[in-house]
């Protein structure tokens, strides 16, 4: 699987010059800091740095961008944990247990867990990419709308899991999100649900909506408090406890590995990085013996979400390098950087520049170690957020979110979306609806509609079509097993108990 000659050449490329390494630390730092502002995205940071790319050689440029990407993948977890602000869709799952841990004064451990899970997830993904880059690419090219539809359906089962205490409210919230996700132009150009505003033709701006639903709504609830953590003794930023959190991540190797593998696989799909963390969280909750602990500050929730989020980078890089297809905004900007050096990603690139591909993968593995060190220092500083009085924090975060939303959308749609969804989010919290279900629906609305429509067009409405798609069929079986298992377990336990009773 590994071309040893190319691997040796890659090592040579990385060890004969210090220049490629010069950009790693700045890249990671930019990636980490950009997500401190709610509304700013990795693709925006990458795009801002594009003018620097022509001044770097191709390998250095690739390393710089992967370093930013790596930093950003962990960076989103920091506001998600400390402020319940998921800087992007990729960090939504991290908020579920991260913020409750922070509120309980366990912010040090939560940040440590996220850092270790993120580093481990990235390492697993890049090791997989190193060993199986070509098979992964060959697999990715076989994935079409039916497979995407199964993934989307799988993601939607999460809505049912996030139902909270009331199933009907959870499902209604999920369906509401799904419909919100389809606002805008249809595939045939019909404007739906835009109230006549041209600004909504592209759909509801996703990041401002998520920031509004989660962050602003939560900040409204905090206005009456002095600090995020009420107890003075729990507000300390403690390096020892951050390290303990990092160690704790490896106490759940199954959760970590499952998240990393799931993230790597989902990451190869377009838009996959956004739902990888949610699917991984859902699977971790399903597999747990005590699923009721999830959402109350369970370390496994953070590990599952962060390892999948981080490893989705490896999957999306596989699709980018081997097929030349971007799976999200960040990899699309990377593809532009390829063009600046007159290089086109795809099978020919993999064949002709295998040494470069290996060099990027090896440098990314090294970046994981560097991220662990820099990330530790960064969270040590970021942890001081819990010491800031909320009367300062609330207006500053809200104002940053509004400015970030405007910067992202470049029009009033961003800030207005944020404000409207902040109120909706607060009301949903008040009436005990799971806000996360709306977010899942929002994320999956367009994806599901597109995949459903293309599957319908390919099949001509014939259900037997699925039998001609072995990968989709396999995924469907896995999906069915994953849905049925929680119901089968108690039934099996009941049968075993009754048998035991008969024997006794």
């Amino acid at each position: 699987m590994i071309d040893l000659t190319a691997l040796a050449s890659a090592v040579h490329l990385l060890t004969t010059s210090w220049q490629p390494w010069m950009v790693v630390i700045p890249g990671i730092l930019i990636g980490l800091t950009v997500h401190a502002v709610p509304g700013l995205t990795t693709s925006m940071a990458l795009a801002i740095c594009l003018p620097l790319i022509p001044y770097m050689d191709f390998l250095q440029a690739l390393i710089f961008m992967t370093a930013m990407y790596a930093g950003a993948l962990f960076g989103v977890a920091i506001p998600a944990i400390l402020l319940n602000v998921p800087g992007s869709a990729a960090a939504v799952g991290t908020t579920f247990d991260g913020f409750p841990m922070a509120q309980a004064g366990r912010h040090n451990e939560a940040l440590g867990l996220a850092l270790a899970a993120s580093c481990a997830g990235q390492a697993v993904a890049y090791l997989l990419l190193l060993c199986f880059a070509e098979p992964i690419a060959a697999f990715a090219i076989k994935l079409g709308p039916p497979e995407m539809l199964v993934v989307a359906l799988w993601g939607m089962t999460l809505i049912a899991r996030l139902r909270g205490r009331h199933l009907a409210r959870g499902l209604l919230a999920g369906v509401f999100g799904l419909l919100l996700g389809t606002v805008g132009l249809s595939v045939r150009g019909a404007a739906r649900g835009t109230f006549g505003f041209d600004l909504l033709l592209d759909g509801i701006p996703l990041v401002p909506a998520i920031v509004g639903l989660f962050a602003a709504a939560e900040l409204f609830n905090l206005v009456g408090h002095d600090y995020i953590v009420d107890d003075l003794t729990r507000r300390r930023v403690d390096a020892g406890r951050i390290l303990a959190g990092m160690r704790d991540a490896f106490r759940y190797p199954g959760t970590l590995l499952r998240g990393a593998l799931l993230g790597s696989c989902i990451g190869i799909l377009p838009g996959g990085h956004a739902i990888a963390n949610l699917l991984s969280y859902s699977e971790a909750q399903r597999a747990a013996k005590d699923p009721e602990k999830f959402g109350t500050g369970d370390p496994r929730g953070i590990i599952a979400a962060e390892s999948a989020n981080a490893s989705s980078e490896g999957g999306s890089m596989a699709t980018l390098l081997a097929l030349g297809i971007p799976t999200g905004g960040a990899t699309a900007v990377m593809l532009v950087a390829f063009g600046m050096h007159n290089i086109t990603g795809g099978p020919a690139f993999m064949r002709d520049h295998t040494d470069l591909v290996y060099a990027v993968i090896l440098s990314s593995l090294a970046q994981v170690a560097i991220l662990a060190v820099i990330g530790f220092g960064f969270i040590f500083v970021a942890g001081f957020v819990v010491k800031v009085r909320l009367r300062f924090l609330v207006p500053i975060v809200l104002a940053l979110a509004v400015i970030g939303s405007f910067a992202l959308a470049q029009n009033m749609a961003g800030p207005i979306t944020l404000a409207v969804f902040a109120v909706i989010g607060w009301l949903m919290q008040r009436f005990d609806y799971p806000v996360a279900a709306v977010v899942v629906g929002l994320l999956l609305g367009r994806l599901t509609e597109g995949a459903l429509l293309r599957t319908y067009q390919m099949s001509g409405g014939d259900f037997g079509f699925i039998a001609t798609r072995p990968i989709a069929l396999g995924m469907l079986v896995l999906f069915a097993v994953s849905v049925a298992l929680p119901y089968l377990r108690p039934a099996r336990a009941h049968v075993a108990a009754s048998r035991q009773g008969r024997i006794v």
Partner: protein
Amino acid sequence: MAARIFKFTIGSRTIVFDLPHLAFATAIAAWCIWFCQDAWRAQRDVENLILILPASLLAAILYVCVAAGCIRIVSAPEHDAASPRHPLRPGMATKIAGTMALLAAYVIAAPLIGFDVVSFVYILAMLLFLGERRILVLLLVPTLFCAIAIYCFDTILATPLPLLFFAGDAS
């Protein structure tokens, strides 16, 4: 916002209506139905309605289930302990409503007037609203925030923001 529960007593039974929740669920369902109708009006074909139509029907069914949960028949002694939500702490409703109103004003005014001035006024107003009374802090925090935020977005990130006094720096 206190939990507003409306009740009607018939004999020994009391019918309890959770009207705020019913209103919220109705608003969600109404939007879903309106959205379906809007999509139907825009284009009546499979491409447009393949997801929206079944999802809207599902929303309507779920709404009926939720609405049914908003109306409960309880015996009189049960009713006193039957509040569906924790009441907000005293003064919280005003603080939350004020924060929402200030956010709405900021969102509308900033792109029209300029983020530099409106951000300063917003932070100042929020600090005052949340109880800060030290003059130095009231001046320093909004000034520092505006200087740093506007410099980062407008100059470093080259993101054109509508500004009143510093317009033209980025672009």
